[in-house]
């Protein structure tokens, strides 16, 4: 297992390298002087010179690239033009809110998606299967931001059941358990909105994997042993299908993280996703590229974790 972990980490490094390289060349592909792009709004000549020196833009390309890599490797993504603070600290203080949101929606999506997928597989071809399949098809055919806005209108504005935006109530300050409850109430709508896409993906793939697993010989063998249907479903078929489910979660993690951008905007959630929005609107490119590299690393890490979990679940993958 340790060997696998090391190997996965060794495979992740080129990925991170690829991301940083991509970013480096994108900034240079962009029309205009990279210094001007990095310096932002109406820079003074002195500031431009300062930026040029800081990023080594007066140096040959390969040196610039090396310098960029070194900086990125140490978590130095430059200084946010608009906020005038190190990009990494801006990202880091926003990250926890996104972690809360992402984990909540992934837990929700995993549980519900798996349940629906297993249910659909058990009733494959029946009306229940059709309903679940059609529902999940709709789930990933409607843009998340539209779903989110409709949920706000319905549950926050019209029905007044849940808060419309933010992570905590501003009107009163809660502490202790009441604070947890308060965050929970604010979390429901964004987490549900963010979960929909992943949920439908999990349901679809789990269904396919379950149908495949249920058609395997070992299910017949286990049945012949006298194993109960419930145990067949969960202990035998699902133990096999769950590898697919975990793989899907890993592969779609990037989509989920991208989804936080939309969800955090729609629900005023103070997380990392909104840093993207702010950075786009202000064309704060150090912040934008920094947030991008950071997110990519998180996605790569999540993929590694998902691979390791798969290996733990399926002995055939351990090697």
């Amino acid at each position: 297992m340790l060997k696998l972990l090391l190997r996965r980490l060794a495979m992740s490094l080129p990925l991170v390298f690829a991301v940083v390289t991509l970013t480096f060349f994108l900034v240079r592909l962009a029309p205009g002087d990279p210094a001007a792009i990095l310096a932002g709004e109406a820079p003074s000549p002195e500031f431009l010179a300062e930026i040029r020196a800081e990023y080594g833009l007066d140096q040959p390309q390969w040196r610039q690239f090396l310098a960029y890599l070194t900086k990125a490797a140490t978590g130095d993504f430059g200084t946010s033009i608009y906020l005038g603070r190190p990009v990494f600290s801006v990202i880091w203080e926003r990250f926890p809110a996104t972690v809360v949101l992402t984990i909540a929606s992934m837990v929700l999506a995993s549980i519900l998606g798996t349940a629906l997928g297993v249910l659909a597989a058990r009733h494959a071809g029946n009306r229940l299967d059709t309903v679940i399949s059609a529902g999940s098809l709709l789930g990933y055919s409607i843009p998340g931001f539209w779903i989110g806005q409709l949920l706000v209108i319905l549950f926050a504005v019209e029905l007044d059941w849940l808060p419309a935006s933010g992570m905590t109530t501003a009107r009163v300050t809660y502490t202790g358990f009441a604070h947890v409850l308060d965050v929970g109430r604010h979390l429901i709508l964004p987490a549900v909105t963010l979960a929909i896409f992943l949920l439908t993906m999990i349901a679809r793939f789990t269904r396919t994997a379950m149908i495949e697993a249920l058609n395997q010989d070992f299910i017949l063998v286990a049945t012949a042993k006298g194993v109960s249907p419930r145990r067949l479903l969960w202990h035998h078929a699902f133990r096999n299908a769950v590898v697919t489910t975990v793989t899907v979660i890993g592969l779609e993690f990037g989509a989920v993280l991208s989804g936080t951008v939309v969800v955090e905007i729609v629900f005023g959630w103070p997380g990392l996703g909104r840093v993207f929005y702010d950075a786009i609107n202000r064309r704060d490119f150090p912040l934008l590229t920094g947030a991008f590299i950071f997110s990519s690393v998180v996605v790569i890490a999540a993929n590694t974790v998902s691979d390791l979990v798969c290996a733990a679940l399926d002995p055939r993958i351990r090697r």
Partner: protein
Amino acid sequence: MSLTLPRPALWRLPSLPASTVIGIALVAFVVLGTLLAPLIAPANPLALSTDILAPPDAAHPLGTDDLGRDLFSRVLYGGRVSLGIGLFSALIGVTVGVGIGLAAGFFGGAIDEALMRMTEVFQVLPKLLVAVVVVSLLGSSLLNEILVIGLLSWTATARIIRTRVMVLREEEFIAAAAMSGASRTRILLRHILPNVAPYLMASTTLQIAGAIMSESFLSFLGLGDPTYPSWGFLLQQGQLYIDSAWWLTTFPGLALAMTIVGFNLMGDGLGQSRAIGGARR
């Protein structure tokens, strides 16, 4: 051991499942509508009128927007943009995917290894965020959107094609062709490519759906091309009116969802496999 009856052949139209037929019908409906836009549209989608934010009525079947423009016409013409982005970026994605898949599957060995590592890199990237960064940096134009969405969406196709090619490579008729002295290129183009065609249809269809969705994501972030308003763009423009002029988001949203559902159903049916683009191993 297995009791399953033989599956129907991939490309037999009369035996398509109902869901696929629904998908094709939806897509046909939408495509026809946008193609015939000049004939159907009651107004020039850009024409202003003093009839501002009018709810749907006989004159404006889907109402008007905040500059008095006819929403029905805008949705029809917006479809051209959305479908165009979908189609062209899917074509780019599928072309790249086929190239890489064919090469990896056919040549195998080190080439396969290298191409698959590259595929893994692209598969793991948070694609929408890459698109956001690229379009922010390079500017929001239709071309940039198509290119970036297309160039990010070939991994699934590459994997499917590679697997198919690897299976096909072992089959007798390929071996026979090789033995009869056909060149590698000829085998690729004449024997293997036609055999992966059904998968291409499915991949393309699914990717059109994905690309339209990605475009709406970019539009939501204000990165859509304002010269060519797509459905995503209309949806984004309407969000401020979401509960005062519901039609501005509802109709573009429905058009978008209907189209994506259609393409997905169609793709699922054509691919005969819901796991297309699926698990890694």
